C-alpha cells in the first residue's frame, strides 16, 4: 500500500517537473530531433567547416604545419583557372545530363511496359529492381568485365556474331570509355525511375484516362495531357533521390577507368580524390570539393523545389 503510494507520488513529482521545471526550453520535437542533429553536426557539418577552412590554406598531408598558413582565395583562384578542373566539371555535367535523361526515358518506358503486362507483374517488378541492389562498386566492376576489350562479353558477342573482327577498345578509347561509363550508370539507376513511375501509374485513377479516350484523344494526347501530369511528382521524387547521390558515379568511374585513359573520363570527384590522396594537396582538393558540393546541393534544391511545385499542382487537381 505504502509503496504504491510512494510510486504514485513519485510519478506525479516527475511529471510535474518534466512539464514545468526541467526542460523549460526544449519542446518534444526538439528533443526528438536532437540526436539526429548532433550526429549530423558532428560527422558532416563540422568536418565540412573544417574542410572549408583548410581550403584557404596550402595544406599538404606531408606537411602538417601548413594548415596554419592562411592564403586567402589562392586555392580557389588556381582551381578556377585550371583547365583540367573545367574539363572535369564539363564532363561531369555532360555525363549527368545524358545519364539522367536516359534514365528518365528508359525508366518511363520500362514502367509502361511492365504496367501493360497482364501476367507475372510481381515477378517483373522484382526483376526490375534487380540493378538497384548492386553496389556501385559492383556495377563498375561488372561493366569493366563486360566491356573488357579482350575477354569481355560485349566484344565476344560482337565477334561471334560476325559484326566486327577486331576487338573494340571500349575502355581504352576516351570517348568509348565515357560511353561505357554512361551505360553502366544508366543500367544501375534506371530502376529508381522505373519503380517510382510504376508506383505512380498504379496509384493513378483510371477515370480521367477513360474520359480522355471517350472524348476522342489519341493515345499520345492521352499520355501527354492526362497521364504525364499525374506522373510528374513521382518522376521528381526519383530525380530528388538520384540527385542525393549523383556521386555514385565516382565509384563506377573509379573502378572502370580510374579517370583514364589519359584523363579522358576524369570527373569532378575522381579529380578531387586524385588531388587529395595521390598528390597529397589537401587544401587544393578541398577547394575543388567545395565546388562539387555546391553543385550537388544546387541540384538537390532544384529538384526538391520542382517536387513541391508538382505536388501542389496535383493537390489542386485532386
Amino acid at each position: 500500500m505504502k509503496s504504491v503510494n510512494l510510486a504514485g507520488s513519485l510519478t506525479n513529482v516527475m511529471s510535474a517537473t518534466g512539464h514545468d521545471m526541467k526542460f523549460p526550453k526544449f519542446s518534444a520535437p526538439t528533443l526528438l530531433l536532437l540526436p539526429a542533429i548532433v550526429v549530423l553536426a558532428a560527422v558532416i557539418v563540422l568536418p565540412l567547416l573544417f574542410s572549408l577552412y583548410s581550403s584557404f590554406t596550402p595544406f599538404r598531408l606531408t606537411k602538417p604545419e601548413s594548415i596554419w598558413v592562411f592564403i586567402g582565395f589562392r586555392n580557389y583562384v588556381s582551381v578556377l583557372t585550371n583547365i583540367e578542373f573545367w574539363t572535369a566539371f564539363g564532363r561531369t555535367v555532360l555525363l549527368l545530363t545524358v545519364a539522367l535523361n536516359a534514365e528518365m526515358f528508359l525508366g518511363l518506358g520500362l514502367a509502361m511496359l511492365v504496367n501493360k503486362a497482364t501476367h507475372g507483374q510481381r515477378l517483373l517488378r522484382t526483376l526490375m529492381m534487380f540493378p538497384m541492389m548492386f553496389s556501385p562498386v559492383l556495377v563498375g566492376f561488372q561493366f569493366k568485365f563486360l566491356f573488357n576489350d579482350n575477354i569481355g562479353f560485349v566484344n565476344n558477342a560482337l565477334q561471334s556474331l560476325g559484326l566486327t573482327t577486331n576487338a573494340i577498345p571500349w575502355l581504352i578509347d576516351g570517348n568509348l570509355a565515357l560511353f561505357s561509363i554512361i551505360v553502366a550508370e544508366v543500367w544501375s539507376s534506371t530502376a529508381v525511375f522505373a519503380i517510382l513511375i510504376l508506383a505512380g501509374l498504379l496509384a493513378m485513377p483510371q477515370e480521367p484516362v477513360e474520359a480522355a479516350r471517350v472524348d476522342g484523344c489519341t493515345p499520345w494526347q492521352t499520355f501527354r495531357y492526362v497521364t504525364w501530369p499525374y506522373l510528374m511528382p513521382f518522376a521528381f521524387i526519383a530525380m530528388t533521390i538520384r540527385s542525393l547521390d549523383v556521386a555514385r558515379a565516382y565509384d563506377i568511374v573509379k573502378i572502370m577507368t580510374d579517370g583514364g585513359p589519359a584523363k579522358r573520363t576524369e570527373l569532378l570527384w575522381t579529380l578531387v580524390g586524385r588531388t587529395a590522396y595521390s598528390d597529397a594537396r589537401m587544401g587544393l582538393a578541398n577547394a575543388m570539393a567545395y565546388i562539387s558540393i555546391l553543385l550537388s546541393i544546387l541540384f538537390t534544391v532544384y529538384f526538391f523545389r520542382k517536387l513541391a511545385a508538382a505536388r501542389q499542382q496535383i493537390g489542386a487537381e485532386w
Partner: protein
Amino acid sequence: MDQNSAHRLKRRGLKFLHLVGLFIAMLIICMPGLWIVLSSLRPTVEIMAKPPVWIPQDISLDAYRAMFGGAGQGGIPVWEYFRNSLVISITSTIIALTIGMAGGYAFARYKFKGKSGIFLGFMLTRAVPGIALSLPLFMIFARVGIIDTHFAMILIYVALNVPFTIWLIDGFFRQVPKDLAEAAQIDGCTRWQAFWQVEFPLAGPGIASAGIFAFLTSWNEYALASQITRSVNSKTLPVGLLDYTSEFTIDWRGMCALAVVMIIPALTLTFIIQKHLVSGLTFGAVKG
C-alpha cells in the same frame, strides 16, 4: 468485317511487340548479373579463352572454396572482410534506425517552426559527395587516431543513413492515422504507451524496410570506406573487392565469386522490403 480483322491483326501485332520489348528489357537488366554468376563458376582458362567458349564445359565451385579456404588463393582474407562488413553495417543500422525513428516521429506528428527548412537541411547533408566528405573526415580521424577502426566506419554510416531513414520513417508514420493514437490516449494511455502499442506496430513493417535500406547503404558504400579503412581491421567487402586487381592482371574469377557473395545478402533483403520501400518513398509524392 474486314475492318474488324484488320483491327484484330493490329492488336495482336502490338501485343507481340510489347512482349518482345519486355523480354529484351528484362534480358538487359538480368544479363550482367547472370554473367557474373556464370563466370564465377568457370575456370579461368575458359573465361580467357579466345575464341570465346559460350557453352560452359567445366562448372565448379573452386573459386568459392579457394576464397573461403583461408589465405589460400592470393591470400585475400575474405572472412575478415565479411565480418567487418557485417559488424559495421548491422551496428550502424540499429543506431541510425533509433535516431531516425525519433526524428521521423517528430516530423510526422508535431508542428514546429522551420520544419520544412530543417527537413531540407537534413536531406542536403546527404547530398555531400562521399569523396568530398572523406577529405576532412580523413584528416580529423587521423588526428583523433580512429582511422581504420570499426568505430569510425559506424559513426560515418550512422550519419549517412540518418537523413534518408528520417524521410522514410516520416512517411510511414504519416500513413498511420493520427486518430488511433489520440483514441488510445483518451482511453488512458500515456503518449509513450500510445506510441509503443499503437503507432509503432502499425508502422513496424515500414520501419523495418527503412532499416534494410540503411543496411544496404552501409553494405555497399565504397568512396568513404576506401579512404578510412586501411587493413583487415576494418576493410569492408566493397574495398576488399579491389584486392583482386593487381597492377597488370585481374583475377576475374575470384572477383566474380566475391561479387556473388556481396550481392546475395543484398538481393535477399531487397526482396523482403520491395513493397514497403516503394510505398514509403512515394507517400510524400501526393500528400505534403
